[in-house]
């Protein structure tokens, strides 16, 4: 019989559809795994209107079925609400390398040159979880994870 640890390990291999350098586990959207009565995975959306949520569910189901889990149950859990505090610390470095400033309180640092001389261009970026900045030193425009 499959263990909870095994499920977590598989889910750790599923990339987020919009930020593929992070796994769903690193993003903190997997809230609970239970193997008591069949496999149950509880997922929380990052933003309530995030269009990636349905893709995430599909990817999880595909991953589990590919590993022989029949009829996994996926439930959405909204409470407590997702926060960027749940993004694993090791994921911050991956985000930076990918060109996204990780969520920190205060002014984001440029992911390219690490300058803190950055300006907000728009509070909304390419996805609901990011805002758009530009660097005053290397002039690179970049996305920053909203601290939330």
């Amino acid at each position, binding site marked *: 019989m499959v263990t909870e640890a095994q499920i977590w390990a598989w889910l750790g291999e599923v990339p987020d559809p919009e930020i593929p350098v992070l796994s769903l586990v690193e993003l903190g959207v997997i809230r609970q795994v239970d193997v008591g009565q069949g496999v149950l995975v509880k997922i929380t*959306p990052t*933003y*309530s*209107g*995030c*269009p990636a949520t349905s893709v995430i569910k599909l990817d999880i189901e595909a991953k589990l079925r590919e590993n022989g889990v029949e009829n996994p149950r996926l439930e959405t859990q*909204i*409470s*407590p*609400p997702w926060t960027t505090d749940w993004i694993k610390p090791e994921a911050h470095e991956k985000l930076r390398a990918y060109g996204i400033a990780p969520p920190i309180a205060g002014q984001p640092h440029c992911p390219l040159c690490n300058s803190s001389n950055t300006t907000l*261009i*728009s*509070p*909304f*970026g*390419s996805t*609901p979880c990011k805002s*758009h900045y530009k660097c005053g030193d290397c002039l690179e425009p970049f996305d920053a994870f*909203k601290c*939330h």
Partner: protein
Amino acid sequence: MFEFLLRMGDTTLVLGHRVSEWCGHSPVLEEDIALANIALDMIGQTRMWLGLAGEVEGQGRDADALAFRRDAWDFRNLLLVERPNRDFGHTLMRQFLFDLWHHERLSDLCLSEDDRVAGIAAKCVKEADYHLERSKDLIIRLGDGSAESHQKMQAALEALWPYVGEMFSDDTLDSEMSEAGIAPLPSSQRPRFDKALNTTLALATLTRPENDFAQLGGRSGTHTEDLGHMLATMQFLQRAYPDARW
């Protein structure tokens, strides 16, 4: 309870659709992206409110059925959100007045004695907070901007002002919800709204209209003509091809 949830969900649904009408038409790219993101948040929040409404009703209707298979008179949204977009300043002013109310409303609902309501509110209030920061900032910049932007923002405020009172009007359903500990009376939010509004309007050099006459009816199903036109577009696919799926 069902009606109360419709009031929340229909309001975010109608505003979400209105804001989405800007997609591809905004004055600048950043605003286009911002409006599309706000519309998405609104629709996501709608899914939670109407999803719960369907559950509470217990007649097998899900959020989609409630959104796409009801007529205008079944909608319980605030009149403010069904007002047409008109120009960008008008859209922003509508968003600002809504965000200010919405943020207060959700903050109160986080304390609801109904866990499901409190859970949805806690999820939504973080988004509402972010929306309010943006709309407040833009109201100040455009109000206290050029002569033309100032004049447009003042005109928008005056045109939308008659729809503000409805957000804080109480009826029998509100009393029931308040007694049950589910949601406080809307009127109890007004002082906080006024205070925050006056602060922002002062910074934006805009003048608050004096006449507090309020158009009522949205929350009990009496809507302006504009809602029907909007629904004709929004519901077309599900009306023409019931149960169509992607």
